[in-house]
């Protein structure tokens, strides 16, 4: 089980509070999208769950407090897709995906044939075989994002944290990346927490949205509940029209008076 419970979580950078006393529960297999204006603390929450930043309060995954896990155990439980993954020039896609096996190796350990088989399967699953020996610096934006997902998937962690999966992608690639993540979530029974800027997409793919403002939770619920014109006007200072589309989610469209 990989349900996630945040209880009274606060994070401060150099004494400056970024996340304040946050309570949030994410069910196993759920997709929760974190939304909120810039600086609301979305990335920081992801970093706290992956224990990349120290926090106060408690975060439990599958009933176990993350602070009590070794860093390798955290890495076997939580895979992180950062907003702008560093793609070392000259490194091949296969080599990059293989790094995802690191949490399953000893400190000076070497990948076994099982690790290599897992990498091969992940590469196939994301249809990256043709690109396996291509250097990362010669990939397109969409291909890079798929390589990054493959690396995270190779970790075989039940929880996937994603920071802005679609920034710098065109609308078609945004859709295909999110569809891919959603398919993988169902296949591998992943719990997904994604920080997202694009509100319509955030609502379309997530089971629930959590709206963060100034490090606090302003609203949690379905897209229809959270994405309302007054809430967006108040928290984003944006003029929008919210349209309920039959069976296709909630569209948030900027308007100009």
């Amino acid at each position, binding site marked *: 089980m990989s349900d996630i419970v945040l209880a009274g979580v606060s994070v401060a950078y150099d004494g400056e509070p970024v996340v304040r006393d946050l309570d949030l529960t994410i069910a196993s297999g759920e997709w929760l999208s974190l939304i909120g204006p810039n600086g609301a603390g979305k990335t920081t929450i992801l*970093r706290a769950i*992956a224990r*990349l930043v120290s926090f106060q309060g408690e975060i439990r995954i599958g009933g176990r407090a993350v602070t009590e896990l*070794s*860093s*390798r*155990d*955290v*890495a*076997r439980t*939580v*895979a*992180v897709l*950062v907003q702008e*993954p*560093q793609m*070392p*020039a*000259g*490194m*091949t*896609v*296969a*080599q990059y995906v*293989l*790094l*995802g096996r*690191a*949490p399953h*190796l000893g*400190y*000076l*350990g*070497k990948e076994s044939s099982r690790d*290599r*088989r897992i*990498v*091969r399967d992940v*590469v*196939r699953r994301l249809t990256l*075989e*043709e690109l*396996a*020996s*291509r*250097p990362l610096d010669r990939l397109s934006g969409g291909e890079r994002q798929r390589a990054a997902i493959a690396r995270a998937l190779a*970790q075989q962690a039940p929880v996937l944290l994603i920071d802005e999966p679609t920034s710098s992608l065109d609308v078609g690639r945004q859709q295909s990346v999110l569809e891919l993540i959603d398919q993988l979530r169902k296949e591998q029974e992943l719990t997904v927490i994604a920080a997202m800027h694009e509100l319509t997409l955030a609502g379309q793919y997530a089971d629930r949205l959590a709206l963060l403002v100034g490090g606090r939770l302003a609203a949690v619920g379905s897209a229809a509940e959270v994405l309302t014109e007054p809430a967006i006007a108040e928290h984003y200072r944006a003029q929008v029209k919210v349209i309920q589309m039959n069976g296709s989610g909630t569209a948030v469209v900027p308007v100009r008076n």
Partner: protein
Amino acid sequence: MLSIKVGAAAAPPAVLAGMPRLRWGWAGAGLLALAASCGVGVLVGPVHIGVGTVVQTLVGGAVDPGQANILWSLRFPRVVLGVLVGGTLAIAGAAYQGVFRNPLADPYLLGAAAGANLGATLAIAFAPGTSVLGVNVVPLAAFVGAGAAVSGAYALGRSVTGLRSATGLILAGVAIAAFFNSIQSYVQQTQTSSIRQVYSWILGRLVTAGWDDVLLILPYVLLSVVAIYLHRRLLDALTLGEDEVTSLGIPVRRVRLIVVVAATLGTAAVVAVGGTIAFVGIIVPHTIRLLVGRSYRVVIPLSVLFGAAFLVLADAAARTVVAPAELPIGVITAFLGAPFFIAVMRSTRAAAL
């Protein structure tokens, strides 16, 4: 474009292309280059000694005692020392470049050279010809100086930035090196009688090489090379961003610390017996990156082999070009190395840089 057949269900699992591995061809080429350069190193010298005699000597056959003596007490130890110094400088350079994610990092980055130079200069100027426990004081002083400089840089960098950033450590190294260099220059200028000796030490040489020097540095070199070699996979992981490496469960700081300590130990040891030999730590790993690939699983082992081969050859050149005098080996490594490196960069168009 490369295509991979996705085999039918019955076929054995296809090996995925693009996995990092050291190809036997390159490992073989490295070993061959090392063997060939050792051959050249042993055969070149003022007294002609044939290949047959060398082989006879090695297998314990009957040879002229004079020639056997030249081989055992001069040429063999010198070639072995060249292997140790070259291999260590190259692997330490590759390790520093990986840890600091900086292609210009060399083994002297944290002040090892400045410290060694100061130690050696003090020893040459104020305690010439003395020895401690049967070991010449100059390499000992150089070793201590190198260790002191790097420890100082490390302590300074840690107190300023808490080792969060590699930049703080590098800047601390720069500051310490400048400070040590200024004292070294002062001593060198005021002690005019030893200036020539100091100068020749600084430019690097394997002249005094004997088995003593080899035995003196062997434990440190072995420790350094083995430790770095074992971390080659982790050095690849360090090329990712800080959060990404950490989220893979890799203890980034511990990896950095161990690799830096190992590389520094090796550098301090070889700089103590060879002086500061420029360029090997930069040119050898980068040439391998350009020609073979950037994975540290390839760069680390090949750096040892080709670094050793390169230095043994450079040393052979250093003692023949102006025979019977000798050129400082650092002059040769840069004079031969720079044009070669430029040629490699041009021919590969530096695509991998």
